């Protein structure tokens, strides 16, 4: 009787699935620990930067004057004033950059994906790769040499925009190219089969399908160039007053303001202004990223 029960409980063959071996469990543990460690190493500096910028800049940004006034006429240790002149400069310089870089970048991407064959396409891709590796200081000095030394223009916000174009262009080309390549060839063929010419297929079918991703890429590139510092240091002078003219005169921007306060204003007020401007820049870039997400959701192809 007992033996019979035992027999029933005893499987005839050993179970196919064994317990995890100790060796694999140890390896799993080590891998998990390493992944977590890498995650912390990546996140700690990020959080640290955010927290310190917030902690030291929040009281400056929380003031309405900060967004509505310039630093014109204020001395280094004067309390008050604001950075709207620098916000204006940052926005206008990078928007001008986008106005130039986006159409060119998009057209290059369309050429590469839809028309590019053979040597010229390879050469273009190679150039874009090189351009994307150019450090911003090199782009700035190149524009200085071309625009100011050779062509004889003055330093201005527009010169900054030109340098930013060199930095933004490869990013726009790359991201738009990726997005256009994601559009399935079946859609192009469906369009050709309806007797729609190639250029119209690109404009009305391919680009709308890829638009959401293209816009995201552009907004992220824009946010990226807005924080660039080398071009503003080299190509335009700082002024505490607002200058609406992109094409002449000194023009502030947020990175430039921070640098100028750091170099020429040792007072605690200067430090406050630097942290305030840093937080302002972070906020504006965060807003751009948010806008990118919303915009891409708005134009993304819908299912229902």
């Amino acid at each position: 009787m007992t033996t019979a029960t035992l027999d029933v409980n005893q499987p005839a063959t050993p179970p196919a699935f064994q317990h995890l071996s100790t060796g694999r469990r140890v390896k799993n543990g080590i891998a998990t620990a390493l992944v977590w460690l890498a995650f912390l190493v990546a996140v700690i500096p990020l959080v640290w930067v955010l927290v310190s910028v917030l902690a030291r800049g929040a009281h400056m940004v929380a003031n309405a004057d900060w967004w509505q006034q310039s630093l014109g006429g204020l001395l280094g240790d004067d309390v008050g004033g604001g950075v709207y002149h620098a916000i204006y400069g940052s926005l206008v310089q990078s928007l001008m950059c986008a106005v130039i870089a986006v159409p060119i970048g998009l057209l290059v991407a369309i050429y590469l994906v839809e028309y590019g064959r053979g040597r010229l396409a390879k050469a273009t891709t190679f150039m874009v790769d090189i351009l994307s590796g150019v450090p911003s200081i090199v782009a700035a000095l190149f524009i200085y040499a071309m625009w100011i030394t050779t062509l004889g223009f003055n330093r201005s916000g527009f010169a900054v925009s030109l340098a930013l174009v060199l930095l933004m262009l490869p990013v726009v080309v790359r991201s738009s190219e990726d997005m256009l390549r994601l559009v399935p060839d079946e859609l192009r063929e469906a369009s050709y089969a309806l007797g729609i010419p190639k250029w119209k297929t690109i404009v009305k079918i391919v680009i709308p399908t890829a638009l959401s991703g293209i816009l995201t890429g552009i907004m992220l590139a824009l946010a990226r160039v807005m924080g660039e510092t080398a071009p503003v240091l080299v190509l335009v002078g700082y002024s505490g007053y607002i200058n609406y003219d992109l094409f002449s005169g000194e023009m502030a921007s947020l990175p430039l303001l921070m640098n100028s306060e750091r170099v020429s204003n040792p007072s605690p007020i200067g430090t406050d202004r630097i942290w305030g401007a840093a937080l302002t820049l972070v906020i504006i870039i965060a807003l751009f990223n948010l806008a990118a997400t919303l915009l891409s959701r708005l134009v993304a192809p819908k299912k229902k």
Partner: protein
Amino acid sequence: MAKRIDVKDLNIYYGKFHAVDGVTLSVPPRSVTAFIGPSGCGKSTVLRSLNRMHEVIPGARVEGDVLLDGQNIYASAVDPVQVRRTIGMVFQRPNPFPTMSIRDNVVAGLKLAGVRNKSQLDEVAERALRGANLWNEVKDRLNRPGGGLSGGQQQRLCIARAIAVRPDVLLMDEPCSALDPISTLAIEDLITELKKDYTIVIVTHNMQQAARVSDQTAFFNLAGVGQPGRLVEIDDTEKIFSNPTQKATEDYISGRFG
């Protein structure tokens, strides 16, 4: 205005690869011609060269003549865009435009050709959707995205899109291969219906389908891997399925083919 097609000694290449060798066949107007044959024998390739879709692929080219009511569509003065407008195509996988509504998908061909008149477009959309047997299912959600339909509905949407531009010829590359039996029957009925106005060429792997819908059947085969595909024979569907002249055709149809 269905038109007849005459293909004369057509050789088709993908770059250096000779894909199809010396095809000669005729498709009378207002009839259905089925292309059958083993995978890779060049059925899609021949079909795509009937409306100059073949040359869309980089390096692809065609030698020989394709006459549409006597006019060579490969003549140097002919615009491939106009050829494709006259000879429509439905693909194996449904491919509605994801950014467009159901209605805009159907009238895409006209709209992108510059037709602006809204009531005219609405009329065309309804006529094409009715023609494709889809109207009743979608008439209440014409402004919803086309990607939200089921696979069979999407395929019928693509047929509606193809007939909305009123082509003379309709080419279909395995239009039912992704569909359930009921949608398949719906599309076969539709093909029989469309035959009244269009010349239709359909590629299919389904013998019963070829037997059910087609008037004549063309059997393609290839001698071996890397060899070009050839047209083995083309004849009335009844004849091909009951009493083919070629042994290869009989073997293929009776399932004795490798």
